[in-house]
């Protein structure tokens, strides 16, 4: 350990990052300044420090000059700290002797004036800290060779299948009685017009049959403990009141059940029984009993028709909730999305008119397994004209600023399906832009143009039934400015389909907290890096895939699911994972045994050693947050890599230009 500042030899490397830094910060001036600082053996600048030649520069200096410490002034450490740590390691220098200095995201990119001066102060601080950095050893722990997938929509299903196919154990947890998510509610999918159920149900069946997948439906994750490679997850299994091992899915129980309820699966457009599977192809094909509509449960033993008719005696009203604990090495969160409720936008008439429906409701109408057997009917009649309104709740500062990505395409799909099912129907698309960016999408759009669909560029002001002319009587009128023509139009239609925004789930915040994740500004869960790490998160070992991360269509969802599976498998296959080296450690000589720190640790990493009468920190559990360090009255706990000495030196140097001349100090 270096005794004093003069012992240490530090190399300072300033990155131009092309013109990202060099365009605002005078890198030559800063290099000259760095060279003049104490303990600096060499200061260089280079176009792209993270590139091969850039890294080689550092490696060479470490080897030839015998550097004890390295400062890289470049982008955010959140970006390239691992990169430069690897460089140090390769050159034989302990990776924790590296200090990165953020002169891009927090300097050159945000300050038009004063960036150079600030860069100097930041580098001065980094050098000061680097003087006191110490080598640290990384610890490795084994990874539990199993994965947890949360959410059984297409994303969760695909991720689970891939991990299971690789020979690894997967727990797939789904909140609803069946897997399938939103995708199984859809009719046809764009741009190929594949039947959604036809492509999804084989995958659902594969999940059920797979020896490596343990499927837990009607279940929820309620607690997550541990860390990457070693998660302990508690799952609540809600009582179905039907024994899964006995039930054959014959259906006699729901046939005989006299009690009905609104079908959630059909978006309230149809009904189901109190004992039900949400749809005929449910996996598992085992019903659940809804305690809010089952008369046996509500009225203490009245009814019991299902009990009577079940030949396998699979009905069991004595079932209770069960808590199950599983151990996994990786977690894939695939909890999907909710659909924006358009009743907030009253002028579109969603609540007022029964023939104004959402896209998801329309999918149910169109679907052969839906409440109308696939017939598009409204008030008992086939609509001769349909208006489709895009961007309801999306691209809207009052609700969601983002674009929901899939609506333009499914609106085109709807147009096609409507004209296929209802001969001569008129379809009007009220759009802002047509976003048809994917493979086969533009072609699909061009086709719609030839199929007699009318496109009106404008955001409807209102959907009303107040007719002002004969032809509007009995119809819904979409009032809209046609911005390409420059005139206000009134378009009478029989039905209006709204394209509501794809929203984060209502409980996204709770899910984020449960898995220690963050949300982005739009409420979806936050990925680690928007471009380079789209499925990883700030919490090692937890991955997010599918619409939980942001609106996307099925091809992109599947791609992300496979990416998440790859991440999980990479972790599991490596067999071990490096733990955080920057943990806290108790200086036994200084610890007085006051026990103030013990209850502070959220990971219960601190115990009291009765024999020694000292606090003891479990390195495997410690995450290095530093709360105990700040609390210790004797300063007996040291936060490795963020010691008091290092931080105080950093603070002092940060203000080098705010103080009297060095002589006074």
């Amino acid at each position, binding site marked *: 350990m270096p005794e004093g500042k003069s012992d240490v030899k530090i190399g300072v490397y300033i990155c131009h990052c092309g013109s990202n830094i060099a365009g605002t910060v005078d890198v030559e001036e800063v290099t000259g300044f760095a060279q003049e600082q104490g303990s600096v053996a060499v200061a260089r600048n280079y176009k792209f420090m993270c590139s091969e030649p850039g890294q080689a520069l550092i490696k060479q200096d470490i080897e030839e000059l015998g550097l004890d410490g390295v400062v890289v002034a470049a982008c955010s450490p959140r970006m390239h700290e691992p990169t430069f740590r690897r460089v140090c390691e390769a050159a034989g220098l302990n990776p924790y002797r590296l200090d990165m200095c953020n002169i891009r995201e927090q300097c050159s990119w945000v300050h038009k004036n004063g960036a150079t001066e600030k860069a100097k102060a930041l580098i001065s601080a980094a050098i000061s800290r680097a003087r006191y950095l110490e080598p640290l050893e990384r610890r490795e722990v084994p990874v539990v060779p199993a994965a947890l997938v949360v959410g059984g929509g297409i994303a969760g299903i695909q991720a689970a299948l891939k991990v299971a196919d690789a020979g690894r154990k997967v727990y797939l947890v789904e909140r609803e009685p069946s897997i399938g998510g939103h995708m199984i509610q859809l009719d046809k999918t764009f741009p190929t017009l594949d039947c959604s159920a036809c492509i999804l149900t084989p995958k659902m069946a594969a999940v059920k049959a797979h020896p490596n997948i343990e499927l837990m439906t009607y279940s929820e994750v309620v607690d997550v403990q541990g860390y990457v490679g070693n998660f302990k997850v508690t799952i609540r299994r809600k009582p179905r009141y039907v024994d899964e091992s006995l039930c054959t899915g014959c259906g006699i129980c729901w046939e005989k059940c006299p009690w009905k309820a609104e079908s959630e699966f059909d978006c309230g457009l149809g009904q189901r029984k109190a004992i039900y599977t949400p749809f005929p192809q449910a996996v598992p094909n085992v019903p659940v009993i809804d305690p809010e509509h089952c008369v046996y449960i509500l009225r203490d033993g009245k009814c019991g028709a299902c009990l009577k008719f079940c030949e396998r005696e699979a009905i069991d009203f004595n079932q209770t909730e069960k808590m199950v604990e599983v151990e996994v090495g990786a977690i894939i969160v695939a909890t999907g999305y909710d659909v924006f409720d358009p009743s907030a936008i009253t002028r579109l008439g969603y609540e007022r008119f029964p023939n104004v429906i959402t896209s998801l409701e329309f999918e149910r109408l169109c679907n052969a397994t839906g409440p109308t057997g696939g017939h598009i009917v409204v008030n008992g009649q086939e609509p001769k004209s349909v208006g489709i309104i895009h961007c309801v709740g999306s691209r809207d500062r009052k609700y969601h600023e983002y674009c929901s990505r899939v609506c333009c395409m499914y609106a085109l799909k709807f147009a096609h399906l409507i004209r296929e099912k209802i001969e001569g129907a008129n379809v009007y698309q009220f759009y802002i832009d047509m976003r048809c960016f994917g493979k086969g999408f533009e072609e699909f759009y061009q086709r719609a143009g030839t199929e007699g669909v009318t496109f009106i560029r404008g955001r409807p002001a209102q959907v009303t039934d107040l007719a002002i002319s004969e032809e509007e009587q009995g119809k819904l009128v979409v009032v809209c400015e046609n911005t390409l023509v420059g005139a206000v139009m009134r378009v009478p239609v029989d039905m209006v389909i709204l394209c509501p925004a794809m929203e984060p789930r209502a409980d996204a915040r709770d899910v984020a907290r449960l898995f220690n994740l963050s*949300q982005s500004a739009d409420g979806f869960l936050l990925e680690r890096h928007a471009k380079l790490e789209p499925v990883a998160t700030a919490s090692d070992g937890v991955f997010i895939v599918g619409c939980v991360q942001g609106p996307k269509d099925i091809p992109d969802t599947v791609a992300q699911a496979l990416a998440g599976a790859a991440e999980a498998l990479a972790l599991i296959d490596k067999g071990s994972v490096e733990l955080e080296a920057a943990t806290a450690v108790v200086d036994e000589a200084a610890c007085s045994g006051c026990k103030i720190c013990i209850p502070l640790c959220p990971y219960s990493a601190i115990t009291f050693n009765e024999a020694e009468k000292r606090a003891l920190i479990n390195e495997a559990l410690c995450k290095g947050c530093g709360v105990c360090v700040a*609390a210790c009255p004797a300063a007996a706990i040291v936060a490795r890599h963020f010691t008091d000495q290092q931080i105080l030196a950093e603070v002092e140097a940060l203000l080098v230009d705010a103080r009297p001349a060095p002589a006074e100090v």
Partner: protein
Amino acid sequence: MVVPSDNHEPRIVGFLCNWCAYQGADLAGTSRMAYTPNVRIVRVMCTGRIDPTFVLKAFSSGADGVIIAGCHPGDCHYSEGNYKTTRRIAFLRKLLAQMGIDGERFRLEWVSAGEGAKWAQIADEMSAAIKEKGPLAWRENLKEA
């Protein structure tokens, strides 16, 4: 000698937690939001790490203001660190007031990883408020006292 002048730009030290606030400040950068260079950031893993001596060191080294920014309550990456921070800062604030460091010069803020705009706004506001107050010049004031 710190020359008090009309053009004095405040020096503010910010202690930002790695998981939320620091990332939020990075986001302000990737979004190219322009804001004052007067805030200089020290990264800590959690605001719960912050020892009162860090804050005192900053002021005694010449800072005109100090800001601590962490995760919103309930969202701490380490579960509860920010709650501890809240309590500690409440106490520290009283101590600082006795030394003549009040209100605007010491702030505790919650900035999430998605709140780049909020960080930029806070930096600008704090810098403007402290600029109006003038330099802290703590050493000089202490000597006089």
